[in-house]
């Protein structure tokens, strides 16, 4: 039953898991359940090191239900129902795919699976089922309903786990299954084409949803969906460079989301506020937190000089190399729009006027919140400076999956024959510019005027009342909805559909329930009617 195998791919994901779990261990948390977290950890190990599909499935399911119990304490009824329907449903499609694979190949063990003799229709069915599973776990668009609510309503620590690790299991399984088990030549390109576009559309839609979001954790959840969307898009190209890009982005995104979720969690912990409209102006109170956030969002937006740029660079070059111009444009569009919500994080929480009068009374952030953040920041900065340092690990994975590594083995230089950049030079240049700007502002500081209270806007023409929300984050993104396409994206909500489906099933259930309350006599009538019908059918 339980068969394990240590692989380079498993090592990478498991390494990420260990780092995330260990650093999160320091974070204070009200709902700390050691049993459930260790179960979750064990299940992740089970997924990453499995050597047959059953072990993978066991890990997958344990991950599903242990996360459920972790969420259940804080989430509301509907969120939980969505979570369970999507995740158990996803697991069952995985089981269905596994059973199909067993029917086709007669085995569960990775190394014994051979799809060369399997009819292509069956391979397509298997592929679609597996993709459904992966899409559900990583929240690709039509299957993302559960993600945002679950991320935002679970406790702050677990949101980080969900986004940093659990959404990556989908990526892991994608690489494992489509790069290693069902190898490239058996996969139909139309499916991959669809997957690529689904991924990129997901990232665009999620980005705009994020911009319009007023709740910090929901914003991060949408951002997480968008980022995993890139990964799926780039994976679906199925080339060496794209695989390395996907792996790189996985690593970056794990630490970015670890950093950002814990960063926000720290603010929520001290302020008990989780909406941008009730936060703001915390820069001078929590400067360290602010700096860490900046590190996180620079990486999230994929700007040089931090780690995010390295992975985005690889993604763009991979798309260019395969001549996927349209996809590249879409990714660039979504990536550029991501600046908007990144800015919202900075402004909404740290800049502007504090909207909440209690701001002065907020306590200090416990130091333990900084452990995962600093870990993330150090890694992101390192990967920005010496981006080539983890390339050997990726090359090892590519080798084990049967692909030719294409990335250079330099430390400062990241890139393939196609394009490359020197992380040291980039960070040096940006560092210089940064220092210059800093000096400029330090000079300006003496001349700036400090406001006395939040309503003191002495340079404006009018004097606002106390109930006017002056916060910039309040209503941000509202103007965007004037643009037709974006308005369409924003106005669509899964809620109504979900409501309709659950009402439908409830009504059906009500009808069948009526049957089970038949009186004894009607029961007898049913029995004899059934007997007569069968008799009639038999006689005929």
């Amino acid at each position, binding site marked *: 039953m339980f068969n394990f195998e240590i692989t380079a791919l498993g090592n990478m994901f498991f390494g990420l898991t260990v780092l995330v779990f260990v650093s999160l261990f320091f974070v204070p948390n009200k709902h700390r359940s050691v049993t459930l977290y260790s179960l979750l950890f064990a299940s992740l190990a089970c997924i990453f090191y499995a050597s047959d599909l059953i072990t993978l499935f066991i890990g997958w399911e344990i991950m599903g239900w242990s996360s459920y119990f972790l969420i259940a304490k804080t989430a509301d009824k509907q969120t939980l129902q969505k979570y369970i329907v999507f995740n158990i449903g996803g697991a069952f499609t995985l089981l269905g795919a596994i059973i199909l694979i067993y029917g086709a190949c007669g085995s569960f063990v990775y190394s014994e699976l051979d799809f060369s003799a399997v009819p292509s229709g069956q391979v397509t069915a298997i592929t679609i089922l597996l993709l459904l599973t992966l899409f559900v776990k990583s929240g690709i668009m039509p299957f993302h309903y559960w993600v945002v609510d679950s991320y935002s309503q679970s406790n702050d620590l677990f949101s980080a786990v969900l986004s940093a690790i659990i959404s990556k299991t989908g990526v892991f399984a994608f690489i494992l299954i489509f790069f290693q088990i069902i190898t490239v030549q058996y996969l139909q390109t139309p499916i991959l084409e669809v997957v690529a576009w689904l991924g990129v559309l997901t990232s665009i839609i999620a980005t705009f949803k994020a911009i319009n979001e007023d709740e910090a954790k929901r914003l991060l959840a949408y951002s997480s969906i968008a980022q995993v969307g890139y990964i799926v898009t780039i994976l679906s190209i199925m080339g060496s460079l794209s695989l390395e890009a996907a792996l790189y982005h996985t690593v970056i995104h794990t630490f970015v989301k670890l950093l950002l979720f814990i960063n926000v969690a720290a603010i929520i912990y001290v302020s008990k506020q989780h909406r941008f409209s009730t936060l703001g102006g915390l820069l001078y109170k929590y400067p360290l937190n602010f700096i860490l956030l900046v590190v996180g969002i620079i990486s999230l937006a994929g700007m040089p000089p931090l780690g995010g740029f390295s992975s985005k660079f690889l993604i763009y070059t991979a798309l260019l190399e395969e001549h996927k111009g349209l996809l590249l444009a879409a990714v660039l569009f979504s990536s550029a729009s991501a600046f908007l919500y990144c800015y919202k994080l900075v402004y909404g929480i740290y800049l502007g006027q504090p909207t909440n009068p209690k701001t002065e009374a907020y306590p200090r952030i416990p130091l333990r919140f900084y452990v995962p953040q600093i870990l993330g920041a150090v890694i992101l900065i390192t990967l920005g400076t010496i981006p080539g340092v983890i390339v050997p690990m990726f090359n090892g994975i590519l080798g084990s999956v049967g692909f030719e590594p294409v990335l250079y083995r330099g430390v400062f230089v990241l890139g393939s024959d196609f394009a490359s950049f020197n992380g040291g030079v980039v960070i040096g240049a940006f560092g210089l510019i940064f220092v210059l700007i800093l000096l400029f502002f330090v000079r300006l500081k003496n001349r700036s005027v400090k406001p006395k209270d939040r309503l003191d806007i002495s340079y404006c023409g009018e004097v606002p009342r106390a109930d006017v929300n002056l916060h910039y984050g309040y209503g941000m993104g509202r103007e965007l909805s004037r643009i037709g396409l974006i308005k369409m994206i924003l106005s669509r909500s899964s809620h109504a559909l979900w409501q309709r489906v659950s009402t439908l099933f409830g009504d059906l259930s009500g009808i069948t*329930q009526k049957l*089970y*309350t038949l*009186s004894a*006599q009607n029961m*007898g*009538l049913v029995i*004899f009617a059934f007997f007569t019908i069968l008799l009639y059918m038999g006689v005929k």
Partner: protein
Amino acid sequence: MLETLNQTTFLHTVVAIGSFTIFTIGLVGVLSKKNLFKIFLSLSIVESSLFLFFIGSHFEVGKAAPIVADGIKLFDGHMVDPVPQAMILTTIVIGVAVLALSLTFVVNYYRLSGNIDIDKMDELGEVQ
């Protein structure tokens, strides 16, 4: 005329038709009557019709009762097959046991609820 009446095949037909009629009457009683006593009476009649059918279908004209008397040591071709009779004996006894039990329940139910109408038994069902 009377000769044909005495033939086994004819008798079997009579038994089949007769017991089927009684079965149907009982069945209609079970399904249409609202009084619990009536339902259990009808069930007994349905059962009895089955017994009649079984014993009757096994009977062949001219065969004696399967009783091993002084001279006869073995069951043979002149006797009716004893197995169905043994079966029916057992079944009748079981039937009465079940009947007594069900009537106990009916009486007890009546004492608690003052009702022996099957349509008024609404204690069970989905809570809302």
